[in-house]
């Protein structure tokens, strides 16, 4: 799982049986107390600038906790917090591989200034998010993310949670991080983007035991891509999510189709879906990805859906191995 905190937004991506939405009440309380940001409307509902909540359908929904067992329950919960939310089921309802999305209307009052021209300046017009969710990973590929390192017992059966905060020594003898680093190098997951612009690149990866891998990569101090992998045979899964503007980072030498190919080559999944969010359908990346189908060898398109979501465009395509 990963959390990315910017000055004005957060992205929280959590795996397993996590209870992502249960943080909302505390999050807004802390933001109100610590930062003085009052985000509620007259009805007591929160109205931040924009909220997105999404997930692919679960493989084991009944093993999830509470509201997360069921998409409608999650939406009901979100609607208790936020004003003007809408939910979408993207893909085939009769299949267990569709994708769900909840999004709120943009709170335009939070744009600074009031002139229509200010909208152009205020929103991050190049904001785009590419997500690739893969299932049925090739077993040779997924084996690269199995380590079986020794797990140390927790002292006296009680975990000490008080001594670690602000620890900054960064010892290189941390085996989980060292193995994560090695996995990244071996699988070339650090070479998904062509960094022709020479921007800074930071990396943080962890190899779980007995298996699994998570990593955060930061480009140009401000963009991230993140990978989460559960390689277990029978329910293997890998996800890639990125807000890296490929065109500028690569100096026009690379596009998102090439990024997709590189990601897919690491895992060779039986099936994957791609979602792409961007501002406006005239975005070059959006137009290119609309024609991606013929450019991904060995895979055939099963579903292709475009949504016009107020100020965002969403493209969803599902592929299966031929």
């Amino acid at each position, binding site marked *: 799982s990963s959390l990315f*905190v910017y*000055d004005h*937004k957060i992205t929280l991506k959590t*795996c397993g049986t996590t209870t992502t939405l249960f943080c909302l009440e505390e999050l807004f309380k802390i933001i109100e107390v610590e930062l003085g940001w009052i985000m509620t409307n007259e009805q007591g509902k929160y109205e931040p600038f924009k909220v997105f909540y999404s997930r692919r359908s679960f493989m084991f929904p009944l093993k999830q906790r509470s509201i997360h067992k069921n998409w409608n329950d999650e939406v009901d919960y979100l609607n208790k917090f936020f004003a003007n939310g809408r939910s979408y089921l993207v893909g085939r309802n009769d299949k267990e591989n569709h994708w769900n999305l909840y999004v709120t209307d943009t709170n335009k009052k939070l744009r600074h200034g009031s002139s229509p021209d200010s909208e152009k300046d205020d929103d991050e017009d190049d904001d785009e998010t590419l997500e690739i969710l893969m*299932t049925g990973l090739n077993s040779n590929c997924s084996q690269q993310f199995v380590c079986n390192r020794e797990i140390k017992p927790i002292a006296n059966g009680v975990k000490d949670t008080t001594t670690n905060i602000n620890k900054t020594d960064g010892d290189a003898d941390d085996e*989980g991080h060292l193995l994560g680093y090695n996995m990244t190098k071996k699988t070339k997951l650090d070479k998904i983007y062509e960094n022709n612009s020479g921007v800074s690149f930071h990396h943080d990866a*962890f190899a779980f035991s007995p298996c699994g891998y998570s990593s955060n990569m930061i480009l140009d101090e401000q963009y*991230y891509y993140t990978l*989460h992998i559960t390689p277990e045979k029978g*329910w293997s899964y890998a996800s890639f999510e990125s807000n890296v503007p490929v065109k500028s980072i690569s100096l026009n030498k690379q596009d998102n189709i090439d990024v997709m190919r590189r990601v897919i080559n690491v895992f060779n999944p039986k099936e994957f879906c791609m979602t792409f969010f961007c501002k406006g359908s005239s975005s070059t990346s959006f137009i290119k990805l609309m024609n991606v189908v013929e450019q991904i060898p060995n895979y055939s398109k099963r579903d292709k859906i475009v949504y016009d979501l107020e100020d965002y465009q969403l493209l969803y395509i599902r592929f299966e191995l031929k």
Partner: protein
Amino acid sequence: TITIKELTNHSYIDHQLSATLDSTEAFEGPEKLLEIWFYPNKKCLSEKNTKTLRNIEVNKWVQILKLVQCEVLSIKSTSDMDAFLLSE
């Protein structure tokens, strides 16, 4: 590409959690993805001269993440963002 230096420039690592974390029961792959834009951009905040989300202390994020059933393994910080790598 990355270098071995990336193992020694974290702004935070929980070594104890790293050594003891067992993911045997982490059976479910698909993630839940929550993105909240409190304001459209950083510029809006600097004009109001307020604190930002990055002024919230790590302890508070730990408190928030506990409700999600996640713990913080490590953090990388840059001039523009903090990237938390979490358990699960």
